[in-house]
């Protein structure tokens, strides 16, 4: 398998598509048409025009799969909150792929997941084989915006497929203000769809999660919740409890996109291990019910959590990426996919440096890198894929040497 990645931030959509596709072909140095294209762009571009522009370069036979991203990261370039577009072209050779697409997310995430999983039931039998799951994270009707949830989608998918495979993925959004977003579904363009891209043959995907958050408190318990809204903590209204805990220095209106709660899936009082933590980010406040609105609905009553703080240095990233490269043994790395929470961009995270640069440096040009800034990240925590916030998911694809 060979992959070429191209990047552009040209504000003119046609030019952006052509530039990115041509750069991807140039970087792969392959003469025959590619077999598959992964493409992500910000919502400043028209999805139809962009698809046409890319197809005009790579041909119309290869499916184009992907959707919105608030930014993009390649080996040597990155950007967010602008006109970024990134394209990865795949020449699969001995590797096979299967693409399944399902709509209806806005109506029922779990049902969509189930349909998608069902379609793959007869095609994916090896739980080790990689699955990429992307879905439209934005449900916007006029001025009303809500998030489409990963948790029910994943549950439905697992139920439909019959098991949970080696899966990573992303809830896609095209900008920071939750504008309507589009998905490229192989042969066309759609909204509120979920896409599952599975690979067969001698391909391997290894992934790590990185969030750089550490617990700042002991454990508290969600005592009442309604879907993704935590209504009570330790028997007190959630908002009041948290306000009291954080004091006047951090007013409640600062909570959205800032307050991170950690769910430890590892040993309760054991040594801190990033892999064991699922980060949960506050999306909004429910002032009426004194609740805290989260991105995902998995903090049900009885969930214990800790308040987390962010690490402002990014030293935790390189060793984790390096661990994947060094663990390959007889396999050859061919492609890296980095799914990064949009909020982790330095402009919004307060990090000293862009984590994109840290990842680029860690990859060091050893494989083509396609990174996106997403709304929700999906990766395994202690072996079980789940929707994550404030997380970077790094996956390394390899084939036998």
């Amino acid at each position, binding site marked *: 398998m060979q992959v070429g990645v191209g990047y552009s931030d040209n*504000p003119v959509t046609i030019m952006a598509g052509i530039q990115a596709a041509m750069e991807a072909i140039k970087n792969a140095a392959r003469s025959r048409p590619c077999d598959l294209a992964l493409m992500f762009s910000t919502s400043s571009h028209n999805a139809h025009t962009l698809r046409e522009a890319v197809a005009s370069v790579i041909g119309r036979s290869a499916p184009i799969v992907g959707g919105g991203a608030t930014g993009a990261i390649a080996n040597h370039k990155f950007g967010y909150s*602008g006109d970024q577009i990134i394209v990865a072209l795949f020449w699969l050779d001995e590797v096979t792929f299967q693409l399944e697409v399902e709509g209806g997310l806005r109506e029922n995430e779990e049902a969509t997941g189930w349909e998608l999983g069902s379609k793959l039931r007869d095609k994916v039998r090896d739980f080790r084989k990689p699955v990429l799951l992307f879905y439209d994270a934005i449900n916007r009707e006029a001025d009303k915006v809500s998030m489409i949830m990963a948790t029910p989608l994943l549950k439905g998918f697992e139920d439909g497929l019959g098991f949970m495979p080696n899966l990573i993925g992303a809830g896609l959004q095209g900008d920071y203000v939750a504008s309507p977003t589009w998905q490229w579904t192989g042969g066309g363009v759609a909204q509120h769809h979920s896409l599952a891209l599975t690979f067969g043959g001698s391909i391997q995907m290894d992934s790590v999660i990185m969030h750089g958050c550490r617990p700042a408190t002991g454990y508290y318990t969600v005592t009442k919740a309604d879907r993704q809204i935590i209504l009570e903590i330790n028997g007190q209204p959630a908002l009041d409890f948290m306000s009291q805990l954080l004091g006047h220095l951090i007013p409640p209106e600062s909570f959205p996109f800032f307050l991170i709660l950690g769910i430890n899936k590892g040993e309760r009082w054991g040594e801190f291990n990033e892999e064991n933590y699922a980060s949960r980010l506050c999306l909004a406040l429910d002032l009426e019910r004194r609740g805290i609105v989260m991105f995902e609905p998995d903090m049900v009553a009885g969930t214990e959590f800790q308040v987390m703080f962010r690490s402002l240095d990014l030293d935790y990233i390189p060793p984790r990426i390096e661990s994947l490269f060094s663990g390959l043994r007889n396999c050859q790395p061919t492609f890296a996919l980095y799914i990064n929470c949009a909020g982790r961009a330095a402009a919004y*995270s*307060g990090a000293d440096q862009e984590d994109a640069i840290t990842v680029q440096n860690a990859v060091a040009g050893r494989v083509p890198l396609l990174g996106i800034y997403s709304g929700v990240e999906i990766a395994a925590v202690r072996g079980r894929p789940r929707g994550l916030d404030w997380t970077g998911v790094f996956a390394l694809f390899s084939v036998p040497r």
Partner: protein
Amino acid sequence: MTNSNNEINDCTELAELAELRQEVVYLRRICENSLGRLLLADTQGIAIRHELEQKRRGMSLMADLAMALRPGSDYESAFTSVSRRINAALSMQRTAVLVREPDGLFRVSILQGYEAQEQADLTDKRLLIDEASLHPQSPILITGADPDSRMADLRQALALPYLIACPVRLHDKIVAILVTGRLIESPPFLPRLTSSDLETVQTVSAYLAAMLTGQLLEKEEAQKRDLEEIMQTVFRASLDGYLVWDSGRMERISPGALKLLELESSEEFLENYSAYGLTEAHLNGAYRRVLTEGRFREELLLRTKSGQLAPCELTYLPLNLRHTSCLLSYVRDLREQKKNEEALLLAKEQAEVAAKAKSAFLANMSHEIRTPMNAIAGLAHLIYDDNLNQIQKDYLAQIEDSFKSLLRIVNDVLEYSTMTARKMTLETTVFRLDEALAAVIRGNQPPAAAKGLRLILAEPAPADLYLTGDPVRLKQILNILLDNAVKFTYKGEVTVAVTEVGRSQGASGQGQVTFQFAVTDTGIGFPPEEATKLFSAFSQQDNSSTRIFGGTGLGLAIAKELVEMMGGEIRAQGQPGQGSVFSFTARFLLARPVDLDKGQTLQAKASELRENFQGARILLVEDNKVNQLVARKLLEKAGIVVTIADNGLKALEKVKAQEFDLVLMDIQMPEMDGLEATRQIRSQAEFATLPILAMTAHALSDDRELSFKAGMNGHLTKPINVKELFVTLGEWISAK
């Protein structure tokens, strides 16, 4: 003991446990108390990092612009580049560029981040923006903290509630406004716009202005270079040249001027320009004159390298060169022009000689024709006697008619020739309009009556109206028109009408009056499209009319010339078969009533005078024998004693030998002509009052002038009008 020891141990463990619990609670409290501070550090880090990122993006944007805005980019492409990148770079949602129009309104020119329909609706919309609110040091920043009313029109027009508006200035004039902003305030990704954002946008717009100014200057510089190149090319291609003189030093000479002076290099001239006819003193003088008077021109003789003198025209102008006032002189070679002028002068002289020859020829022809005509008319007159039978009288009448026709033709030709040579001048005498009209009617009555036509004066002119003008020429115009009218009318009538059409003040302050005269007939008429052609010389309705009606075709052309000399216009209206109207206007000065003794008709006066000529002595100086005979017989019939001299020389002898009451002097004679003879007679004091009348076939007005200059008292033209002859004689003989 063991139990008590166990109890002691248990107590110790419990105490330690309680202590440990207290410590955990204590530590937890410390941890929780520090949590706010810990997370506050996070928030502060985010804020700082966010601002840094915005600044980095601003710098990155300007770097992008520097790459994107190439030399030669126009406003449009510059603004497009900016607006395309500004949304992405500064996390803005919408950007618009408003371009200032000449009428002061701002046109929505470029839009980014708008839906297609919004773009269509907004593009080219004109907005009124108070420029006073766009101070360059404090551009507009509108956030959620501002009242909705602030710049409500702009925010509403651009559908942009939160915005930054920065003017882009070129040469202190606002050429555009860069407006960028957000639809919502949604921290942390789209926080409230701050002064930091404003500074970034302000820097971008200042950078854009600087870049555009630079491009403008480059463009102007390029235009200057182009202009210089064009000027140089023009001067290289031009036959003219130029010189630049600066404070006593010749600075520059153009290739054209070098060529004129037959030089090959500028140095040759610049080092020694005075050798070519341009002295320092002269140029200093020209320089002073240019500074005081501005541009001026002179002709100067320059000297070429080969020593040839070249007449040149030098046009001097002030020239600001390197902030110094210099003298620029265009040099035009006049050699070719001078040659042409000389050729023209020669041609003019030749033309004048030819014109003189023509005049002489006309005069000669006039003389040669009139002389025999005089004989014919005179002899016919002598033959006439009451004893002749009717047939003989009819023959004589026909001879007289033919004679008159011939005379009219000759007069027309001569008169028209005189007019076209602009030699004719109008007389200015006092006359009564009613009398002039009556005379014209009376004169044309016989031919009209002969054709059975009524000739009517529609309304007599006022009897007390005295005018100053040329009654002879007025009557001549009317006679031409009436002659034509009678000629081309077979039945019905010919009417003459006179209408006063206006009075005014003349240049001399004397009152002026303009009349319209109209001659209407019931004749054959003419097609309307022929109206203007009728007044052309040698033109008649068609050739057939000349054959049928005779005439030279000069009558109306003469009438037109005369009318125009009288400050009027002539026109003709007609329809074939429905008659015609010839009308003209003429302007006269109003005169005070005077005693017009001449109101008495020449006919009456001639008859009366003829009785008084008995015994009068006249010297007739005439070389032509037939004319001698005619004149002698006419004069003797009136009882005058006639002595004949064949030429001027003999006349001199005769006047000295005997006494005469009057001399009738021909002009063109052998031995000594009449002019010379008159001068010599007049040179003797005893003949100072002797009346001498020219009686000559020289009928041009110049000839009349010459006669008076030689000292004659009158000028009678041949063929002799018998009545006029006796009236004139009567004036001088009776006076004596």
